[in-house]
Protein backbone atom coordinates (compact mmCIF):
# COMPACT_ATOMS: atom_id res chain seq x y z
CA UNK A 1 0.00 0.00 0.00
CA UNK A 2 2.73 2.44 1.01
CA UNK A 3 4.73 1.59 -2.07
CA UNK A 4 1.81 2.22 -4.42
CA UNK A 5 1.22 5.57 -2.74
CA UNK A 6 4.85 6.56 -3.09
CA UNK A 7 4.96 5.69 -6.78
CA UNK A 8 1.81 7.59 -7.70
CA UNK A 9 3.09 10.68 -5.88
CA UNK A 10 6.54 10.45 -7.44
CA UNK A 11 6.38 12.72 -10.54
CA UNK A 12 5.21 15.73 -8.56
CA UNK A 13 7.52 15.06 -5.65
CA UNK A 14 10.55 14.54 -7.88
CA UNK A 15 9.90 17.75 -9.80
CA UNK A 16 9.52 19.71 -6.62
CA UNK A 17 12.70 18.25 -5.14
CA UNK A 18 14.63 19.01 -8.30
CA UNK A 19 13.39 22.60 -8.20
CA UNK A 20 14.51 23.03 -4.58
CA UNK A 21 17.86 21.44 -5.35
CA UNK A 22 18.43 23.80 -8.29
CA UNK A 23 17.53 26.82 -6.17
CA UNK A 24 19.89 25.66 -3.42
CA UNK A 25 22.67 24.84 -5.87
CA UNK A 26 22.58 28.21 -7.62
CA UNK A 27 22.06 30.22 -4.44
CA UNK A 28 25.68 31.34 -3.88
CA UNK A 29 25.61 32.94 -7.37
CA UNK A 30 23.06 35.59 -6.50
CA UNK A 31 22.25 35.48 -2.78
CA UNK A 32 24.11 37.66 -0.26
CA UNK A 33 27.04 36.07 1.59
CA UNK A 34 25.08 36.13 4.81
CA UNK A 35 22.36 33.91 3.36
CA UNK A 36 24.97 31.34 2.33
CA UNK A 37 26.52 31.32 5.79
CA UNK A 38 23.09 31.01 7.42
CA UNK A 39 22.12 28.17 5.09
CA UNK A 40 25.41 26.45 5.87
CA UNK A 41 24.58 26.19 9.55
CA UNK A 42 21.02 25.20 8.73
CA UNK A 43 22.31 22.43 6.44
CA UNK A 44 24.65 21.24 9.18
CA UNK A 45 21.76 20.82 11.61
CA UNK A 46 19.60 19.19 8.95
CA UNK A 47 22.31 16.62 8.19
CA UNK A 48 22.81 15.74 11.84
CA UNK A 49 19.07 15.55 12.49
CA UNK A 50 18.16 13.50 9.41
CA UNK A 51 20.97 11.04 10.01
CA UNK A 52 20.00 10.76 13.69
CA UNK A 53 16.41 10.03 12.66
CA UNK A 54 17.53 7.42 10.14
CA UNK A 55 18.42 5.12 13.03
CA UNK A 56 16.65 6.44 16.12
CA UNK A 57 13.34 7.27 14.41
CA UNK A 58 12.16 3.79 13.46
CA UNK A 59 13.99 1.80 16.15
CA UNK A 60 13.17 4.05 19.09
CA UNK A 61 16.73 3.76 20.39
CA UNK A 62 17.41 7.34 21.51
CA UNK A 63 21.06 7.93 20.74
CA UNK A 64 22.82 10.87 22.37
CA UNK A 65 26.02 10.09 20.49
CA UNK A 66 25.74 12.53 17.53
CA UNK A 67 28.24 14.85 19.22
CA UNK A 68 30.73 11.98 19.34
CA UNK A 69 30.38 11.13 15.63
CA UNK A 70 30.26 14.76 14.55
CA UNK A 71 33.17 15.53 16.86
CA UNK A 72 35.33 12.73 15.55
CA UNK A 73 34.80 14.22 12.09
CA UNK A 74 35.76 17.66 13.36
CA UNK A 75 38.85 16.23 14.97
CA UNK A 76 39.85 14.31 11.86
CA UNK A 77 39.84 17.63 10.08
CA UNK A 78 41.87 19.27 12.84
CA UNK A 79 44.53 16.57 12.48
CA UNK A 80 44.61 16.15 8.72
CA UNK A 81 43.35 19.31 7.01
CA UNK A 82 46.84 20.78 6.77
CA UNK A 83 48.33 17.72 5.12
CA UNK A 84 45.60 16.18 2.97
CA UNK A 85 43.24 17.55 0.30
CA UNK A 86 39.78 18.52 1.52
CA UNK A 87 37.69 15.75 -0.13
CA UNK A 88 39.98 13.11 1.35
CA UNK A 89 39.72 14.68 4.80
CA UNK A 90 35.93 14.65 4.56
CA UNK A 91 35.99 11.03 3.43
CA UNK A 92 38.19 10.04 6.36
CA UNK A 93 35.98 12.06 8.72
CA UNK A 94 32.94 10.11 7.57
CA UNK A 95 34.80 6.84 7.79
CA UNK A 96 35.96 7.66 11.32
CA UNK A 97 32.34 8.27 12.35
CA UNK A 98 31.29 5.03 10.65
CA UNK A 99 33.97 2.93 12.36
CA UNK A 100 33.38 4.45 15.77
CA UNK A 101 29.64 3.78 15.46
CA UNK A 102 30.28 0.25 14.28
CA UNK A 103 32.39 -0.44 17.35
CA UNK A 104 30.04 1.32 19.77
CA UNK A 105 26.98 -0.21 18.14
CA UNK A 106 28.33 -3.73 18.32
CA UNK A 107 29.08 -3.23 22.02
CA UNK A 108 26.00 -1.34 23.18
CA UNK A 109 23.05 -1.95 20.90
CA UNK A 110 22.07 -4.83 23.14
CA UNK A 111 21.23 -2.26 25.78
CA UNK A 112 17.72 -0.91 25.73
CA UNK A 113 15.96 2.23 26.89
CA UNK A 114 17.65 4.48 29.38
CA UNK A 115 20.86 2.41 29.51
CA UNK A 116 21.49 2.99 25.84
CA UNK A 117 20.76 6.72 26.18
CA UNK A 118 23.18 7.00 29.11
CA UNK A 119 25.91 5.07 27.38
CA UNK A 120 25.77 7.05 24.17
CA UNK A 121 25.94 10.30 26.07
CA UNK A 122 28.79 8.97 28.16
CA UNK A 123 30.62 8.22 24.94
CA UNK A 124 30.74 11.93 24.07
CA UNK A 125 32.28 12.78 27.43
CA UNK A 126 34.64 9.82 27.26
CA UNK A 127 36.01 10.86 23.87
CA UNK A 128 36.31 14.49 24.91
CA UNK A 129 38.32 13.68 28.01
CA UNK A 130 40.34 10.97 26.38
CA UNK A 131 41.50 13.28 23.61
CA UNK A 132 42.10 16.08 26.08
CA UNK A 133 44.22 13.74 28.20
CA UNK A 134 46.05 12.52 25.10
CA UNK A 135 46.87 16.03 24.01
CA UNK A 136 48.02 17.19 27.40
CA UNK A 137 50.07 14.12 28.27
CA UNK A 138 51.20 12.58 25.00
CA UNK A 139 51.13 14.88 22.01
CA UNK A 140 51.73 17.99 24.11
CA UNK A 141 49.60 20.34 22.04
CA UNK A 142 46.05 21.33 22.85
CA UNK A 143 44.09 23.04 20.14
CA UNK A 144 44.81 23.01 16.46
CA UNK A 145 44.38 25.39 13.57
CA UNK A 146 42.33 24.33 10.58
CA UNK A 147 42.82 26.19 7.30
CA UNK A 148 39.70 28.12 6.32
CA UNK A 149 37.82 27.30 3.16
CA UNK A 150 35.65 29.63 1.08
CA UNK A 151 32.07 29.93 2.38
CA UNK A 152 30.62 28.75 -0.92
CA UNK A 153 32.81 25.62 -0.90
CA UNK A 154 31.65 24.65 2.59
CA UNK A 155 28.10 25.25 1.49
CA UNK A 156 28.40 23.10 -1.62
CA UNK A 157 30.03 20.23 0.22
CA UNK A 158 27.28 20.26 2.81
CA UNK A 159 24.71 20.36 0.02
CA UNK A 160 26.27 17.26 -1.54
CA UNK A 161 26.33 15.43 1.80
CA UNK A 162 22.73 16.48 2.38
CA UNK A 163 21.62 15.20 -1.06
CA UNK A 164 23.34 11.86 -0.55
CA UNK A 165 21.83 11.59 2.91
CA UNK A 166 18.29 12.27 1.67
CA UNK A 167 18.73 9.72 -1.09
CA UNK A 168 20.01 7.12 1.38
CA UNK A 169 17.16 7.82 3.80
CA UNK A 170 14.57 7.61 1.05
CA UNK A 171 15.93 4.31 -0.29
CA UNK A 172 16.20 2.86 3.21
CA UNK A 173 12.65 3.80 4.13
CA UNK A 174 11.30 2.11 1.02
CA UNK A 175 13.44 -1.02 1.28
CA UNK A 176 12.81 -4.16 3.27
CA UNK A 177 15.35 -2.95 5.80
CA UNK A 178 13.16 0.07 6.49
CA UNK A 179 10.29 -2.24 7.49
CA UNK A 180 12.72 -4.35 9.51
CA UNK A 181 13.99 -1.33 11.45
CA UNK A 182 10.43 -0.34 12.23
CA UNK A 183 9.61 -3.85 13.42
CA UNK A 184 12.61 -3.66 15.75
CA UNK A 185 11.18 -0.47 17.20
CA UNK A 186 7.78 -2.09 17.66
CA UNK A 187 8.81 -5.47 19.07
CA UNK A 188 12.45 -6.38 18.83
CA UNK A 189 12.06 -9.92 20.19
CA UNK A 190 9.35 -10.78 17.69
CA UNK A 191 11.43 -9.25 14.88
CA UNK A 192 14.31 -11.60 15.72
CA UNK A 193 11.95 -14.59 15.57
CA UNK A 194 10.87 -13.53 12.07
CA UNK A 195 14.39 -14.05 10.80
CA UNK A 196 15.87 -10.58 11.20
CA UNK A 197 19.44 -10.43 12.44
CA UNK A 198 18.55 -7.55 14.72
CA UNK A 199 21.99 -6.82 16.15
CA UNK A 200 23.72 -6.66 12.79
CA UNK A 201 21.00 -4.56 11.19
CA UNK A 202 20.93 -2.08 14.07
CA UNK A 203 24.70 -1.75 14.10
CA UNK A 204 25.02 -1.18 10.36
CA UNK A 205 22.30 1.46 10.16
CA UNK A 206 23.73 3.14 13.27
CA UNK A 207 27.12 3.26 11.53
CA UNK A 208 25.71 4.58 8.24
CA UNK A 209 23.98 7.38 10.12
CA UNK A 210 27.28 8.22 11.85
CA UNK A 211 29.08 8.33 8.51
CA UNK A 212 27.08 11.41 7.49
CA UNK A 213 27.62 13.07 10.87
CA UNK A 214 31.37 12.50 10.66
CA UNK A 215 31.57 13.90 7.14
CA UNK A 216 29.57 16.97 8.17
CA UNK A 217 31.88 17.45 11.17
CA UNK A 218 34.97 17.27 8.97
CA UNK A 219 33.80 20.08 6.71
CA UNK A 220 32.31 22.21 9.49
CA UNK A 221 35.69 22.23 11.25
CA UNK A 222 36.95 24.59 8.56
CA UNK A 223 34.36 27.14 9.66
CA UNK A 224 35.79 27.41 13.17
CA UNK A 225 39.48 27.64 12.25
CA UNK A 226 40.57 26.87 15.84
CA UNK A 227 39.66 23.41 17.19
CA UNK A 228 40.16 21.94 20.63
CA UNK A 229 38.38 18.92 22.10
CA UNK A 230 35.82 21.07 23.92
CA UNK A 231 34.78 22.72 20.67
CA UNK A 232 34.80 19.46 18.73
CA UNK A 233 32.74 17.45 21.24
CA UNK A 234 30.01 19.92 22.09
CA UNK A 235 27.21 18.06 23.97
CA UNK A 236 24.63 20.41 22.48
CA UNK A 237 25.18 18.67 19.15
CA UNK A 238 23.78 15.49 20.78
CA UNK A 239 20.61 17.11 22.06
CA UNK A 240 19.73 19.32 19.13
CA UNK A 241 18.88 16.53 16.65
CA UNK A 242 16.55 14.89 19.18
CA UNK A 243 14.67 18.14 19.71
CA UNK A 244 14.67 19.06 16.05
CA UNK A 245 13.46 15.65 14.88
CA UNK A 246 10.65 15.52 17.43
CA UNK A 247 9.68 19.08 16.61
CA UNK A 248 9.55 18.42 12.88
CA UNK A 249 7.86 15.03 13.10
CA UNK A 250 10.00 11.97 13.64
CA UNK A 251 7.82 9.60 11.60
CA UNK A 252 7.93 11.56 8.37
CA UNK A 253 10.68 11.72 5.77
CA UNK A 254 10.65 15.52 5.71
CA UNK A 255 9.86 16.02 9.40
CA UNK A 256 13.48 16.15 10.59
CA UNK A 257 14.43 18.39 7.66
CA UNK A 258 11.75 20.93 8.46
CA UNK A 259 12.30 20.69 12.22
CA UNK A 260 16.04 21.26 11.84
CA UNK A 261 15.62 24.11 9.35
CA UNK A 262 13.11 25.82 11.60
CA UNK A 263 15.17 25.44 14.77
CA UNK A 264 18.44 26.43 13.13
CA UNK A 265 16.83 29.56 11.77
CA UNK A 266 15.16 30.39 15.08
CA UNK A 267 18.48 29.85 16.86
CA UNK A 268 20.20 32.28 14.50
CA UNK A 269 17.42 34.77 14.99
CA UNK A 270 17.22 34.47 18.78
CA UNK A 271 20.95 34.41 19.37
CA UNK A 272 21.31 37.83 17.76
CA UNK A 273 18.28 39.40 19.48
CA UNK A 274 18.29 37.62 22.86
CA UNK A 275 21.79 36.31 23.39
CA UNK A 276 21.14 35.52 27.07
CA UNK A 277 17.63 34.10 26.93
CA UNK A 278 17.61 32.17 23.71
CA UNK A 279 17.94 28.75 25.32
CA UNK A 280 14.97 29.59 27.55
CA UNK A 281 12.83 30.54 24.58
CA UNK A 282 13.97 27.34 22.85
CA UNK A 283 12.78 25.34 25.85
CA UNK A 284 9.34 26.95 25.78
CA UNK A 285 8.94 26.25 22.05
CA UNK A 286 9.92 22.63 22.69
CA UNK A 287 7.42 22.19 25.52
CA UNK A 288 4.62 23.59 23.42
CA UNK A 289 5.63 21.34 20.53
CA UNK A 290 5.62 18.16 22.63
CA UNK A 291 2.32 19.02 24.32
CA UNK A 292 0.35 20.16 21.31
CA UNK A 293 1.98 18.54 18.31
CA UNK A 294 2.83 14.94 19.20
CA UNK A 295 3.40 14.17 15.52
CA UNK A 296 5.53 17.25 15.01
CA UNK A 297 5.18 20.10 12.59
CA UNK A 298 4.75 17.88 9.54
CA UNK A 299 2.13 15.80 11.34
CA UNK A 300 0.24 18.97 12.24
CA UNK A 301 0.39 20.28 8.67
CA UNK A 302 -0.87 16.96 7.32
CA UNK A 303 -3.74 16.96 9.78
CA UNK A 304 -4.74 20.49 8.81
CA UNK A 305 -4.35 19.63 5.14
CA UNK A 306 -6.64 16.65 5.53
CA UNK A 307 -9.21 18.74 7.36
CA UNK A 308 -9.33 21.45 4.71
CA UNK A 309 -9.17 19.20 1.66
CA UNK A 310 -11.83 16.90 3.12
CA UNK A 311 -12.99 14.03 0.94
CA UNK A 312 -10.56 14.64 -1.91
CA UNK A 313 -7.91 13.15 0.31
CA UNK A 314 -9.70 9.82 0.53
CA UNK A 315 -9.40 9.34 -3.24
CA UNK A 316 -5.63 9.70 -3.52
Amino acid at each position, binding site marked *: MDIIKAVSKKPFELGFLLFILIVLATLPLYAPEYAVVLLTSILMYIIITVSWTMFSGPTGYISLAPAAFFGIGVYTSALLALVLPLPVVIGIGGLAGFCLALLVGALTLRLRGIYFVMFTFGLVELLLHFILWWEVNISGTTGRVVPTVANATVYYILLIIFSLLMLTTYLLRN*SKFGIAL*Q*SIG*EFEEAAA*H*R*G*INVNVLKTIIFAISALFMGAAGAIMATRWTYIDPKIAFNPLISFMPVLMAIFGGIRYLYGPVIGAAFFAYVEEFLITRFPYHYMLIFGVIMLVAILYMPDGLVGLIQKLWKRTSGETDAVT
Partner: protein
Amino acid sequence: MRLLEGQGVTKYFGGLAAVFEVDFHVDPGEVFGLIGPNGAGKTTLFNLISAALTPKSGAIKFKGKNITGLKPHQICRMGVARTFQTVKIFANMSVLDNVALGALFGASARLSSADAERQATALLEFVGLSTQKAAPAKDLTLANQKRLEVAGALATQPELLLLDEIMAGLNPAEVAQAMELVARIRDRGITIIMIEHVMKAIMSVCDRIMVLHHGQKIADGTPQEIANSKTVIKVYLGEKADAGS
Protein backbone atom coordinates in the same frame (compact mmCIF):
# COMPACT_ATOMS: atom_id res chain seq x y z
CA MET B 1 14.54 -39.09 10.74
CA ARG B 2 12.99 -37.10 13.57
CA LEU B 3 12.08 -33.54 12.67
CA LEU B 4 12.85 -32.24 16.13
CA GLU B 5 14.54 -34.03 18.97
CA GLY B 6 15.44 -32.91 22.48
CA GLN B 7 17.81 -34.78 24.75
CA GLY B 8 18.10 -33.96 28.44
CA VAL B 9 17.05 -30.35 27.86
CA THR B 10 17.50 -28.39 31.07
CA LYS B 11 17.05 -24.74 32.00
CA TYR B 12 17.28 -23.11 35.43
CA PHE B 13 15.91 -19.75 36.51
CA GLY B 14 18.00 -19.06 39.58
CA GLY B 15 17.68 -22.24 41.63
CA LEU B 16 14.44 -23.29 40.00
CA ALA B 17 14.57 -25.93 37.30
CA ALA B 18 12.08 -24.53 34.82
CA VAL B 19 12.76 -27.39 32.43
CA PHE B 20 14.63 -30.43 33.74
CA GLU B 21 16.10 -33.31 31.74
CA VAL B 22 13.31 -33.35 29.19
CA ASP B 23 13.61 -35.79 26.28
CA PHE B 24 11.17 -35.42 23.44
CA HIS B 25 10.81 -35.91 19.73
CA VAL B 26 8.48 -34.72 17.03
CA ASP B 27 7.99 -36.52 13.72
CA PRO B 28 7.33 -34.83 10.38
CA GLY B 29 3.66 -34.07 9.75
CA GLU B 30 2.56 -34.46 13.37
CA VAL B 31 0.54 -32.14 15.53
CA PHE B 32 2.28 -32.45 18.86
CA GLY B 33 0.51 -31.10 21.95
CA LEU B 34 2.30 -29.72 24.98
CA ILE B 35 0.21 -29.50 28.13
CA GLY B 36 0.71 -29.09 31.83
CA PRO B 37 -0.38 -26.86 34.73
CA ASN B 38 0.69 -23.21 34.89
CA GLY B 39 4.41 -22.89 35.49
CA ALA B 40 5.13 -26.37 34.17
CA GLY B 41 7.78 -25.06 31.77
CA LYS B 42 5.87 -25.27 28.49
CA THR B 43 6.68 -21.77 27.27
CA THR B 44 10.23 -22.11 28.54
CA LEU B 45 10.62 -25.18 26.37
CA PHE B 46 9.32 -23.16 23.39
CA ASN B 47 11.84 -20.44 24.20
CA LEU B 48 14.60 -23.03 24.27
CA ILE B 49 13.60 -24.53 20.93
CA SER B 50 13.31 -21.11 19.25
CA ALA B 51 16.56 -19.90 20.88
CA ALA B 52 15.01 -17.07 22.85
CA LEU B 53 16.81 -18.87 25.72
CA THR B 54 19.80 -21.21 25.70
CA PRO B 55 19.58 -24.46 27.62
CA LYS B 56 21.98 -25.02 30.52
CA SER B 57 22.52 -28.55 29.35
CA GLY B 58 21.11 -30.96 26.83
CA ALA B 59 20.78 -30.70 23.09
CA ILE B 60 18.05 -29.85 20.63
CA LYS B 61 18.30 -31.24 17.12
CA PHE B 62 16.33 -30.10 14.11
CA LYS B 63 16.40 -32.49 11.15
CA GLY B 64 19.37 -34.20 12.76
CA LYS B 65 21.40 -31.02 13.14
CA ASN B 66 22.27 -29.68 16.55
CA ILE B 67 20.66 -26.22 16.82
CA THR B 68 21.50 -25.43 20.44
CA GLY B 69 23.43 -22.18 20.69
CA LEU B 70 22.13 -20.66 17.46
CA LYS B 71 20.46 -17.24 17.35
CA PRO B 72 16.67 -16.78 17.00
CA HIS B 73 16.94 -15.45 13.43
CA GLN B 74 19.04 -18.47 12.42
CA ILE B 75 16.53 -20.90 13.88
CA CYS B 76 13.78 -19.07 12.03
CA ARG B 77 15.61 -19.24 8.71
CA MET B 78 16.21 -22.97 9.21
CA GLY B 79 12.47 -23.48 9.24
CA VAL B 80 11.21 -23.17 12.81
CA ALA B 81 8.67 -20.38 13.36
CA ARG B 82 6.76 -19.48 16.50
CA THR B 83 3.99 -17.37 17.95
CA PHE B 84 3.90 -15.93 21.46
CA GLN B 85 1.59 -16.51 24.39
CA THR B 86 0.91 -12.79 24.63
CA VAL B 87 0.54 -11.67 21.02
CA LYS B 88 3.63 -9.92 19.74
CA ILE B 89 2.64 -8.16 16.58
CA PHE B 90 4.02 -4.94 15.11
CA ALA B 91 1.17 -2.75 16.28
CA ASN B 92 1.74 0.35 14.18
CA MET B 93 2.63 -1.47 10.99
CA SER B 94 0.00 -2.48 8.47
CA VAL B 95 -1.42 -5.99 8.57
CA LEU B 96 0.22 -6.68 5.22
CA ASP B 97 3.67 -5.49 6.33
CA ASN B 98 3.37 -7.60 9.49
CA VAL B 99 3.16 -10.69 7.33
CA ALA B 100 5.46 -9.56 4.49
CA LEU B 101 8.27 -9.08 7.03
CA GLY B 102 8.48 -12.82 7.65
CA ALA B 103 8.58 -13.54 3.92
CA LEU B 104 11.33 -10.95 3.39
CA PHE B 105 13.63 -12.05 6.19
CA GLY B 106 12.64 -15.43 7.56
CA ALA B 107 12.30 -17.53 4.41
CA SER B 108 15.35 -19.42 3.27
CA ALA B 109 14.74 -18.28 -0.33
CA ARG B 110 15.40 -14.63 -1.15
CA LEU B 111 12.18 -13.01 -2.27
CA SER B 112 11.64 -9.72 -4.07
CA SER B 113 9.34 -7.33 -2.23
CA ALA B 114 6.65 -7.90 -4.88
CA ASP B 115 6.85 -11.68 -4.31
CA ALA B 116 6.84 -11.19 -0.55
CA GLU B 117 3.75 -9.02 -0.83
CA ARG B 118 2.03 -11.58 -3.04
CA GLN B 119 2.84 -14.31 -0.54
CA ALA B 120 1.68 -12.20 2.38
CA THR B 121 -1.59 -11.51 0.57
CA ALA B 122 -2.11 -15.22 -0.01
CA LEU B 123 -1.43 -15.99 3.65
CA LEU B 124 -3.83 -13.30 4.82
CA GLU B 125 -6.41 -14.97 2.61
CA PHE B 126 -5.50 -18.32 4.21
CA VAL B 127 -6.09 -17.08 7.77
CA GLY B 128 -9.11 -15.00 6.74
CA LEU B 129 -7.79 -11.47 7.14
CA SER B 130 -7.60 -10.39 3.51
CA THR B 131 -10.16 -7.61 3.95
CA GLN B 132 -8.01 -5.83 6.54
CA LYS B 133 -4.70 -5.76 4.72
CA ALA B 134 -4.14 -2.02 4.98
CA ALA B 135 -5.28 -1.55 8.60
CA PRO B 136 -2.69 -1.03 11.32
CA ALA B 137 -2.28 -4.28 13.23
CA LYS B 138 -3.31 -2.68 16.52
CA ASP B 139 -6.84 -2.12 15.18
CA LEU B 140 -7.57 -5.86 14.95
CA THR B 141 -9.51 -7.84 17.57
CA LEU B 142 -7.53 -10.23 19.77
CA ALA B 143 -8.67 -13.25 17.74
CA ASN B 144 -7.57 -11.56 14.54
CA GLN B 145 -4.26 -10.44 16.04
CA LYS B 146 -3.56 -14.07 16.91
CA ARG B 147 -4.37 -15.09 13.35
CA LEU B 148 -2.16 -12.31 12.07
CA GLU B 149 0.70 -13.61 14.19
CA VAL B 150 0.17 -17.10 12.77
CA ALA B 151 0.19 -15.69 9.22
CA GLY B 152 3.40 -13.77 9.99
CA ALA B 153 5.04 -16.94 11.29
CA LEU B 154 3.85 -18.93 8.25
CA ALA B 155 5.37 -16.29 5.97
CA THR B 156 8.82 -17.47 7.04
CA GLN B 157 7.99 -20.78 5.29
CA PRO B 158 8.52 -23.00 8.32
CA GLU B 159 8.63 -26.76 8.41
CA LEU B 160 7.87 -26.63 12.11
CA LEU B 161 5.48 -24.16 13.71
CA LEU B 162 5.33 -23.56 17.46
CA LEU B 163 1.93 -22.23 18.57
CA ASP B 164 1.83 -20.90 22.12
CA GLU B 165 -1.78 -20.81 23.35
CA ILE B 166 -3.39 -19.42 20.24
CA MET B 167 -6.80 -20.22 21.69
CA ALA B 168 -6.41 -18.52 25.06
CA GLY B 169 -8.87 -15.67 25.53
CA LEU B 170 -11.00 -16.63 22.54
CA ASN B 171 -14.74 -17.32 22.66
CA PRO B 172 -16.08 -20.78 21.70
CA ALA B 173 -16.80 -19.81 18.09
CA GLU B 174 -13.29 -18.38 17.72
CA VAL B 175 -11.79 -21.49 19.32
CA ALA B 176 -13.53 -23.63 16.72
CA GLN B 177 -12.11 -21.42 13.96
CA ALA B 178 -8.63 -21.64 15.46
CA MET B 179 -8.87 -25.46 15.61
CA GLU B 180 -9.87 -25.52 11.99
CA LEU B 181 -6.93 -23.24 11.17
CA VAL B 182 -4.51 -25.60 12.93
CA ALA B 183 -5.87 -28.52 10.90
CA ARG B 184 -5.46 -26.56 7.67
CA ILE B 185 -1.88 -25.65 8.54
CA ARG B 186 -1.15 -29.33 9.16
CA ASP B 187 -2.72 -30.16 5.80
CA ARG B 188 -0.13 -27.90 4.18
CA GLY B 189 2.50 -30.33 5.42
CA ILE B 190 3.72 -28.17 8.31
CA THR B 191 4.51 -29.92 11.56
CA ILE B 192 3.00 -28.24 14.61
CA ILE B 193 3.82 -28.16 18.30
CA MET B 194 1.09 -26.46 20.27
CA ILE B 195 0.74 -25.41 23.86
CA GLU B 196 -2.89 -25.24 24.84
CA HIS B 197 -5.13 -25.20 27.87
CA VAL B 198 -8.31 -25.78 25.90
CA MET B 199 -8.51 -29.56 26.43
CA LYS B 200 -11.20 -30.24 23.87
CA ALA B 201 -9.03 -28.62 21.23
CA ILE B 202 -5.83 -30.38 22.15
CA MET B 203 -7.46 -33.80 22.45
CA SER B 204 -9.16 -33.59 19.06
CA VAL B 205 -6.42 -32.03 16.97
CA CYS B 206 -3.19 -33.56 18.30
CA ASP B 207 -1.59 -36.80 17.18
CA ARG B 208 0.57 -37.04 20.29
CA ILE B 209 0.73 -35.15 23.55
CA MET B 210 3.48 -34.54 26.10
CA VAL B 211 2.68 -33.52 29.67
CA LEU B 212 5.07 -31.37 31.68
CA HIS B 213 4.85 -30.83 35.42
CA HIS B 214 7.31 -28.78 37.45
CA GLY B 215 9.65 -28.76 34.47
CA GLN B 216 9.69 -32.54 34.08
CA LYS B 217 8.07 -34.77 31.52
CA ILE B 218 5.54 -36.95 33.29
CA ALA B 219 3.84 -38.53 30.30
CA ASP B 220 3.63 -38.66 26.57
CA GLY B 221 1.46 -40.57 24.16
CA THR B 222 -1.68 -40.43 22.09
CA PRO B 223 -4.57 -38.26 23.38
CA GLN B 224 -6.34 -41.47 24.45
CA GLU B 225 -3.35 -42.63 26.52
CA ILE B 226 -2.94 -39.20 28.10
CA ALA B 227 -6.63 -38.96 28.98
CA ASN B 228 -6.41 -42.33 30.76
CA SER B 229 -3.02 -41.81 32.40
CA LYS B 230 -3.24 -41.98 36.20
CA THR B 231 -0.29 -39.61 36.70
CA VAL B 232 -1.80 -36.98 34.47
CA ILE B 233 -5.16 -37.17 36.18
CA LYS B 234 -3.41 -36.87 39.53
CA VAL B 235 -1.51 -33.76 38.44
CA TYR B 236 -4.55 -32.08 36.99
CA LEU B 237 -7.24 -33.09 39.45
CA GLY B 238 -5.34 -34.14 42.54
CA GLU B 239 -5.77 -37.48 44.38
CA LYS B 240 -9.11 -39.18 44.12
CA ALA B 241 -10.00 -38.37 47.68
CA ASP B 242 -9.06 -34.69 47.19
CA ALA B 243 -11.16 -34.43 44.07
CA GLY B 244 -14.18 -35.42 46.08
CA SER B 245 -15.47 -38.03 43.70
